[in-house]
């Protein structure tokens, strides 16, 4: 509004700084607004100048990326064995969560998961043998994310593991994820031993064929729709998946009964899904992965397409910077711990499950999940506040995923790295916590803030790419 117009319009003041100035404006010419300003994260002034100069171009690239993210339609289309379907999967390759990492730098849970995986594959008879083989250099490691896959916690995927196949129907691309093992002593938390191996074998020999046949009968299952419903039923599909699991159960149960020849197997599979509130996590994650992967490689875009952790590093990838990883040390979550455990036992943040936050769910949608607000401060209002704050760092609102308590506002979607850095606010992730020692398992859950480091690096790299 020009100065001329200003002098003939009601004064509407945006106040940055001394708050009493806003109060005076409010008293004389309401409304006025206070900006909760804080100094920006430290990035080079050159990067800032470039990104400011290229703002129009970034905006165009982001519109393209956001349209892809908002219009993706992930569906469960089938199951298969990892080696048959995951691109680039081979016998001596093991996938893990998070950005790339060597055996030497891997955290306890990741190592434990790999050792359990080698025993499961029959490559080692004992855990000791598995550890020696894992460290020998004979086994290759790669991030799930680089193979169209996501894995919760340690995220270990070995060639013989069954995986669910999710197709983004709009763009045709596929994503993969293993089946959720449930809670307790499980490989994804780095646990190993008889119990873990027995369950994995049962999953391969019973759960997988039964589910595969059932999904073949139902045809593609629309996960986008199911997630949208789950949000209305109190899930944020990262740390709470009870509604999503129930919805999936409802969709799949008749087909299991219909297609499974062994009544005992049908009962076992249905009981397993029914007893595992997190079964749906391994569907919400690849649903987000399939949706976000379609928005990769859009030059100039500042939208985040992956956030993930390998228990050592936190990694970020942007739509505009190809396969480049931006990393910083992962932080130890300040979570709620199970009895007998404390922060001292906790491993730094781990897992690809932050793909849900990247896709506008999880911590970003926690306002939809009042049942777990204890993780974020104890009051329903705290959950609303977290979600509100995430609107400050995202570029769009989901057209499909809505939050009833915000009058069905779409979830904050499409993290813009510029907003993260310039507003100095990092994404919140609503996560489980693994014990730092291999083999122990989950010790807590809570909310964790992403470190600023990877975002600051991504910001600089985006600037370099636009120089």
């Amino acid at each position, binding site marked *: 509004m020009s100065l001329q117009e200003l002098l003939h319009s009601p004064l509407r003041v*945006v106040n940055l700084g001394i708050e009493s100035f806003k109060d005076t404006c409010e008293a004389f010419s309401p409304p006025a607004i206070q900006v909760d300003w804080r100094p920006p994260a430290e990035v080079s002034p050159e990067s800032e100048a470039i990104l400011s100069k290229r703002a129009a171009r970034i905006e165009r690239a982001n519109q393209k990326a956001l349209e892809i993210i908002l219009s993706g339609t992930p569906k469960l289309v089938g199951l298969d064995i990892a080696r048959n379907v995951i691109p680039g999967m081979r016998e001596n390759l093991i996938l893990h969560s998070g950005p790339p990492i060597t055996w030497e730098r891997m955290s306890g849970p990741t190592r434990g998961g790999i050792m359990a995986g080698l025993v499961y594959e029959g490559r080692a008879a004992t855990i000791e043998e598995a550890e020696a083989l894992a460290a020998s250099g004979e086994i290759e490691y790669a991030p799930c994310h680089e193979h169209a896959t996501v894995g919760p916690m340690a995220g270990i995927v070995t060639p013989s593991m069954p995986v669910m196949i999710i197709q983004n129907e709009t763009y045709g691309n596929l994503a993969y994820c293993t089946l959720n093992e449930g809670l307790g002593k499980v490989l994804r938390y780095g646990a190993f031993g008889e119990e873990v191996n027995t369950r994995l074998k049962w999953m391969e020999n019973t759960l997988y064929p039964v589910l595969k046949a059932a999904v073949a009968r139902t045809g593609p299952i629309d996960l986008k729709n199911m997630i949208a419903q789950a949000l209305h039923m109190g899930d944020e599909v990262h740390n709470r998946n009870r509604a999503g699991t129930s919805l999936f159960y409802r969709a799949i149960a008749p087909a299991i009964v219909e297609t499974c020849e062994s009544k005992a197997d049908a009962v076992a599979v249905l009981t397993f899904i029914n007893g595992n509130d997190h079964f749906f996590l391994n569907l919400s994650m690849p649903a987000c992965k399939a949706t976000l992967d379609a928005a990769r490689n859009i030059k100039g875009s500042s939208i985040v397409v992956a956030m993930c952790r390998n228990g050592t590093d936190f990694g970020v990838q942007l739509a505009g910077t190809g396969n480049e990883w931006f990393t910083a040390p992962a932080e130890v979550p300040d979570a*709620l711990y199970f009895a007998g455990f404390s922060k001292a036992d906790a491993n730094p943040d781990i897992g690809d499950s932050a793909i849900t936050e990247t896709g506008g769910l999880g911590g970003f949608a926690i306002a939809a999940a009042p049942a777990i607000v204890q993780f974020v401060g104890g009051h329903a209002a705290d959950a609303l506040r977290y979600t509100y704050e995430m609107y400050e760092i995202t570029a769009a609102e989901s057209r499909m995923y809505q939050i009833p308590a915000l009058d069905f506002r779409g979830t904050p979607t499409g993290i813009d790295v510029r907003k993260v850095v310039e507003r100095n606010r990092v994404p919140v992730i609503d996560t489980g916590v693994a014990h730092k020692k291999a083999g122990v398992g989950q010790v807590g859950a809570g909310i964790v803030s992403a470190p600023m480091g990877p975002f600051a690096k991504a910001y600089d790299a985006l600037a370099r790419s636009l120089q």
Partner: protein
Amino acid sequence: MNTISRIKKGFYFDSVTLMRVGRELSGLPGVSEASVVMASDANKAILDMSKLLLPEIEKASDQDLAIVVRAKDKKTAEEAMAKAEELLNNRKKPNGSACATAPSPRDIASAVEALPGANLALISIAGRYAAREAQRALTAGLNVMLFSDNVSVEAEAALKKEAHRRGLIVMGPDCGTAIINGVPLAFANVVPRGPIGVVGASGTGLQEVTCIIANEGSGISQAIGTGGRDIKDAVGGISFLDAMEALAADPETKVLLLVAKPPQPGVLKKIRALMRKVEKPVVALLLGEGGPPATLEQAAWMALAHAAGQDPGEVAARLEQRDAALREEARQIVAKRKQATGRYLRGLFSGGTFCAEAQVVLHGVLRQIYSNAPLGDSKKLKNAWKPEKNALVDLGEDEFTVGRAHPMIDFTLRNKMLEEQAALPETAVLLLDVVLGYGANPDPVAELAPVIRKAARKVFVVAGMTGTDGDPQNRNQVVEALKAAGAHVKLTNAAASLLAGYIADEMAHKPR
């Protein structure tokens, strides 16, 4: 170590609530471990791992709540158990509202989204970040008032060029005051709306003229501050000239009143050229350039005369009468105090423009005037902390403000100096400015009255009051309280300075 447990039958809490209670208990001094869980088989297994599975918990069912505490002694454990009950009871009560209002926006762009019709950004954050936020405000289409200082002159010029290109204005940096559409911004007074439009490159100067106008029963259309550096050639007077143009075109503005210290030549030329083009009366005070108008007071009175359709030439005669009355008042004040000694005036100012105006006023009255911010014939004080002869000290200068709040807000330093100067035998009269309004000290009486009361036992105290009866401090009460403390209070800085000068002059000529 002492481990105790309690079973509560038929209590249900969700596991996360229980974990929180457990965590709070574990944090109590002397408690090594605590767990509050439903006694399910899975939880019993976890308790067993931590050696917390007491026999009675083993017997409990998954419908029962188990609390177990391990502490350094029995008493500590019992206390923790009581705490657990208390925490669990509190959980049962409704706790706050589920309604959260949207949090404050984190930057200007989202503030603009949240406030339809936003048209001005008022920025008072640390200087090193201020220019960047001002730039963002301009990009968002907002006019800017930049209260922050420590913004480079290069950044200022760049911002103002950009604003000019967009038809916007940047007031400041270091712009302490403005009144836009009747709204006092930052440090400003409550002034009715009226026919006089003010452009000021001097913050306190702008406050003073708007208050005089209000106190004379008139009002202002707009008061636009520009920051003191605007009228340097490096900036080129961009905001000053744009503000003049805007007021020239504004139908509400009948008279323009310009307030500044003398601009640099290039800018002065442009201002004069624009003044000739404006088809409304323009009163320009360039403080220290002579006159008329020579003072803020005279400039305000001339603008008032224009607005009332009177001859501004008559202002000089009215001022002469007023000055004579002040001379007489000074004579009587001095005559009443037989025991007073001292011969010098010591002025301690929180507003730099007041210090400058006082020098203009006193040059015809007193000799040997010294200042840390000398103007005209004044000499430079060797040490601003040690006033000599007739001294006028600007406490807003850098030597006083580094590491301290501005003296308009924090009276501590001036109060200390007032006490020091009152105690010197050479001091005859203390002169100070008191600025009211938004942003200024909310209770000046509480801090000033005791100091004045003490000083007035030894020397004469004169206070110039800048404020209106609409100001939040209640001006009349402040005036009465300061008078009761022993000060002679005038409602303009010029009158106060003159009265103080006459008193010093009377004292200097007093037969001893």
